[in-house]
Each structure stands twice: as C-alpha cells, then as structure tokens.
C-alpha cells in the first residue's frame, strides 16, 4: 500500500539546512566547509601524523579567512602548519605532545613559536606551566598563547574518551613524571579495584575535525590506506567532521573494500574533493613528502619579515588550494606522486 504523500517529500531538501550528517550529498568546497563549520573561538583538530596525511590546505584556508581565538588539539602535528597559525596569532591554545620549537637540521622547525617564546611576537607564549616568554620581552597586550603538554597516547585517549561519550579514560602512561604534575587537567587516582596509581585523561570533543582521506564518496564514507593515526576516533569525537579526499568515488567503489572504510557516512558532515590537500606533507599511496618545499619554506620563515612575505605569497596570494597548486606547479606535484607510486599505490 502506497503511503500517501511520501513521494512528495524531498528528503534531501528537508535535511538540507539543519542536519549535515543526514545529507546524501555532502560535497562542498574547502572554503564553504571552513566557513560553515569553524567559527571564531572554536576548537578543532586535524587528521594524520607528523608530516603525513595532514590537511595542510585547511591551515592555509583558516589563515585566509582570518579566523580568531581558535584552539587546536593534536598529538604530533606538522609543526609547519601549526606554526603558520601561530605566526598570525590565530591560536589561543594548543594541546599537544610534540609540535614545538623543534630543530630541523640546525634550523628552527617552528620559527613563529620560537619567536613567541623568546621575543613575545606576535604574542607571548606560556608553555606547560614551566616556560613563559620573559616579562621584559612581552610587547603586545594580547593574552599569551597557552601550550598544554600531553603525551601522544594521552591526546589520543582524549579523543577515544570523547568518542566513547564518557568523561575520561584511565591509563598508565607517564605516572610519576612531570607531565601529570604540571598539566592540571590530568588527574591521578588510586583505582577503586586494585588500589594502585592510575591517571585519568579527560575526554575532548572538538568542534571540528578536518581529516584527509585517500578515498570518499559523496555521502561521506571515508577510506584510509596506510597508518590510521587517531583519525577514526577524531571523526567520532568531533561535533562536525570534514573529510578532505584525494579521490571522490561513487559508492559502488566503496563497496569493493568495505574494510578500509574507517569513517562511516554517519560521522561525516562535509566532503571536500581536494587532490594534494596534504602538500607539503605526504599522503600514503598518493604522493610523498615535499621535503624541498618544506625545508625552503622553513628557511624563508626563520625571520618574521620572511614569514609575512611567505604568507602574502602562498596564502593571501592564492584564492584557494587550486591556485596554490598552480603557483607551485602541477608537474612538481606529479613528480611527488610518481615517487610515492614506486613504493605504495592505491589499487584502482
């Protein structure tokens, strides 16, 4: 028996404005996605792990849109992308295990953070309750950028707890060290069953998770090849999930390898089809790390003037990621892809 009126309901229309997760077609441009989901004062996280499968184009888009007062949580991010936002004073707080003034062969891996710590520019830095910009160096009246120290496992457990929808996860990492001593959000208890020390890691539910995947369909099923990082936990913990995909495929293609779908459609709010979105980091099976670009941009950004010039050229000088790729040269990106394909390849 036909149900009266069912044919006239346009479900696509009905769910259009209110519930992104229920849409059948979630494809958006990167600009739209950042505008729609990330607002001033929000917290966000990015997928991937040091130098690999990290949506760097999103960092440039956030800078382009001039967002303010964001906080970022990441276990070990590409310091380059985070440093870009630090340079602009966009971040209020970073929760991380490793993204700090690292040295890359004698040059600073995060020049902006280092300037912040030593010279108070663009804003002072206060790290882990241990280090802070010396008072006589603080020039601006902007509140300091707060850095909170965790370990990788602890940051990952924050997402796991967030995804479990419980307030904390217990673990046995770093008991007795200074990380739980200075990080007041970590609680040390004697567990009620065995009466032994244990530390509790609070849950975290970021507002937005930007996650790069190799393959996704329009409805938002994301497939990942290679290491998974903490990505599928991030996708379950975050309020909004934006997938940036190297390849947009019909759902039939997803059916071929369902085991690789680590982010099912019900997690996803938007799908952005953006090849090479991880550049200058790499993407397993798609393209390798652009070390030449990475080192040369670090060299350029060692001084504040150089960094601002770099921003003018590569962030504000390009309207979107495709203009960035045009500027860089597609033949170079192609070369990076060729190099990766000699080692790893996503089956067609």
């Amino acid at each position, binding site marked *: 028996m036909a149900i009266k009126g069912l044919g006239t309901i346009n479900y696509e229309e009905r769910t259009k404005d209110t519930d992104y997760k229920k849409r059948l077609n979630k494809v958006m441009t990167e600009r739209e996605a950042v505008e729609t989901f990330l607002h001033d004062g929000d917290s966000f996280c990015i997928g*991937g*792990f*040091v*130098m*690999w499968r990290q949506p760097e184009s999103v960092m440039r888009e956030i800078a382009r849109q001039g967002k303010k007062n964001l906080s970022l949580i990441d*276990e*070990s991010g590409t310091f380059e992308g985070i440093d870009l936002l630090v340079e602009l004073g966009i971040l209020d707080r970073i929760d991380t*295990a*490793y*993204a*700090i*003034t*690292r040295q*890359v*062969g*004698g*040059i600073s891996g995060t020049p902006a953070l280092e300037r912040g*710590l030593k010279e108070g520019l663009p804003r002072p830095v206060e790290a*882990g309750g*241990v*280090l802070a910009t010396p008072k006589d160096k603080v020039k601006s009246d902007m509140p300091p950028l707060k850095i909170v*120290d965790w*370990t*990788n*496992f602890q940051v990952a457990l924050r997402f796991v707890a967030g995804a479990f929808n419980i307030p904390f996860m217990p*673990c*046995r*990492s*770093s*008991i*007795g*060290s*200074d*990380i739980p001593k200075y990080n007041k959000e970590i609680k040390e208890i004697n567990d009620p069953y065995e009466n*032994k*020390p*244990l530390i509790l890691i609070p849950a975290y539910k970021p507002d937005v998770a930007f996650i790069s995947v190799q393959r996704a369909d329009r409805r938002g099923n994301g497939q990942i*090849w*290679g*290491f*998974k*990082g*903490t990505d*599928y*936990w991030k996708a379950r913990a975050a309020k909004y999930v934006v997938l940036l995909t190297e390849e947009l495929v019909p759902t039939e293609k997803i059916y071929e390898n369902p085991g690789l779908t680590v982010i099912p459609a019900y997690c996803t709010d938007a799908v952005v089809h953006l090849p090479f979105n991880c550049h200058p980091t790499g993407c397993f*099976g798609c393209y*390798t790390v652009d*070390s*030449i*670009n990475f*080192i040369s941009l670090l060299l350029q950004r060692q001084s504040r003037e150089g960094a601002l010039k770099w921003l003018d050229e590569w962030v504000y000088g390009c309207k979107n990621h495709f203009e960035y790729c045009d500027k860089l*040269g597609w*033949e*170079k990106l192609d*070369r*990076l892809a060729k*190099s*990766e394909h*000699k*080692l790893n390849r996503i089956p067609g």
Partner: protein
Amino acid sequence: MGHLYTTREKYAPEQLEEMRKKYTSPELVCCAGSREIIDREVVFVGIGISDLAGAVAKLVHTPNVILVAEAGYIGFPSVAVLISPADNAAGTMAMCHQSLPEVFIDQQSGFIDVAYLGFAQMDKSGNVNVSYITGKQLKMNGSGGGGDIASSAGRVVYTVEFNPRQWVKKIDYMTEPGFLDGSRDARKKANLVGGGPSAVATNRGVFRFDPETHELYLAEVFPWQDEEDIEEVRKSFPWDLKVAEELKIMEPPTERELWALRLMDSTSNYILASVIDRPIGKIILAGKLNLEGYDEYLGLQEKALREILEFVS
C-alpha cells in the same frame, strides 16, 4: 645483548688513533645501539638515530625482530630511515597498518619488548627530559610518544650523541620516567608497566644501570677510549660516575653495520647534522627549486629505496 667484544691489544696504537677519527658520532651511536636487541623481539623505533639503530639491528644482527612505528606501522623491513613515525617507507611491505591508540594499547599490554629513544637531559636514575629546558637557553620540544614508551615498553635503549650538558643532577622537567627516585621498586609502586631504561648508547661508550641501586654507570667503551678518555667522560658528569669493574671493550662498527647505515640513510639526513650540508640543503641553496631539483632529490631517494627493496625481497 652486548655481543661483539674485543680487546685493546688486538689493535696497534696507530690503528686505534686512525679508528678514533674514522667514524662519525651518529655512526658510533647507531652501531652500539643496534647491538642491544635479542632476535625475535618486538622493537619500537622512534625517528632519526633511534630509528637507524633499529634498522641496522634488523638488517645486520637480528633479522626476525618486528619493528613498530607509533603512527600505526608494524612489522616493516626498515625500508629507509624514518623522518616521521608515519613515513610511507614504514608502510611499504609492512605486516600491519594500524592506528596510533592501538599501538600504545599493545604497548601498555606488554607486547613491546624494547624501544629506542633519544633525550636532551638525563639524571642519575635514568629519568629523562626532552621537553622544556629552562634558564637562559629556553627551549621546548615536546615528548611525543616518549613518555608513553618509557612508561610501558619492556626496556628502553637511549641512543644519543654524547654531550656533557645532557647529564644533570636534576632535570628541568621529567617527560620520560626512568627509575624515578632510584629506590628499588619505585616503578612498581608507581604502577608503571615497563622495566625502565636498560642502556644508553653513545659515541663515548655504553652506559647501563646498576640492578640494585639503579644508578647509571659506564659499562662498555670503544677500543680507542684509553684511561684519559674515560676520565674525561667521567668529568662530564655532575656526580661521581661509576665505571664497571670489568669494563668491556666493544668492537668498532663493522663493515656490515656501516653498509646498512649508509643504505638506510641514503640522503644523509641523520649522518650529517646540519641541513645545509645535506644533499637536500645543497639543492635548495643552489636555487634548484624547479623540477630539476625535484628530479635530483627524489631520484636520489628512489635509487636508494630500490637498492633496499632488492635486498629485503
């Protein structure tokens, strides 16, 4: 563990003098570190020198170890030195592609036998700081998974280039728990899973921890390290460093170990400390940011990877 010993008498004085200059510090650290593993162990590798040591062990000494990188790669044939624990080379021919929390969960369950780590500061009881250096220097770095690994891996082998500044009475900030206050069951009381640090491999000898007092002592030296050299090493410590009664003399790096090292670090990212000395630095400084530069650098990488893949398959 700790095989490949020799005697000083085996070498003539001129030979020793020649050997002292022959090897670079990272080479010595990696080779000494690579000898710390037992075959079939599960080995957690970090990046840079600590990964190189694991790679040399896998290629030369202990072919059946399972290498694990924290981003989620397990059981890879150490295809190249890793720039990041998420490196594609670790994914190539890996037994398992996992996620990061799972690797650490496995570690907390006790599956990881030994891990390689580096450090910036260490105290008498093997507690380590890699994050915050206070005072005039004002440095930060972040421990990444170091705190987790030092807490839970069966044992930890630290691989670092010797630097007198790294030994301190009290570390500025503890990221990696060693034997904590040094008391006999400090780690057990703290409910830490792993056994704590077992060795510190440097270019000026291998240090170990006293099983009773958990105090760091000098256990092994290279053949060219004479009394004078050992005294100099001892003076770098702010406490009275003990030296093993039966100080062992290590073999210098073998041909095979050096071959493995060069094969792995084909672009000299870790053997050369400064970026401007490395092939990539030279390409960038020559202004070759065009396709030609990319061809040159990536070609170099690919050639080395081809050689390694041929060897391991």
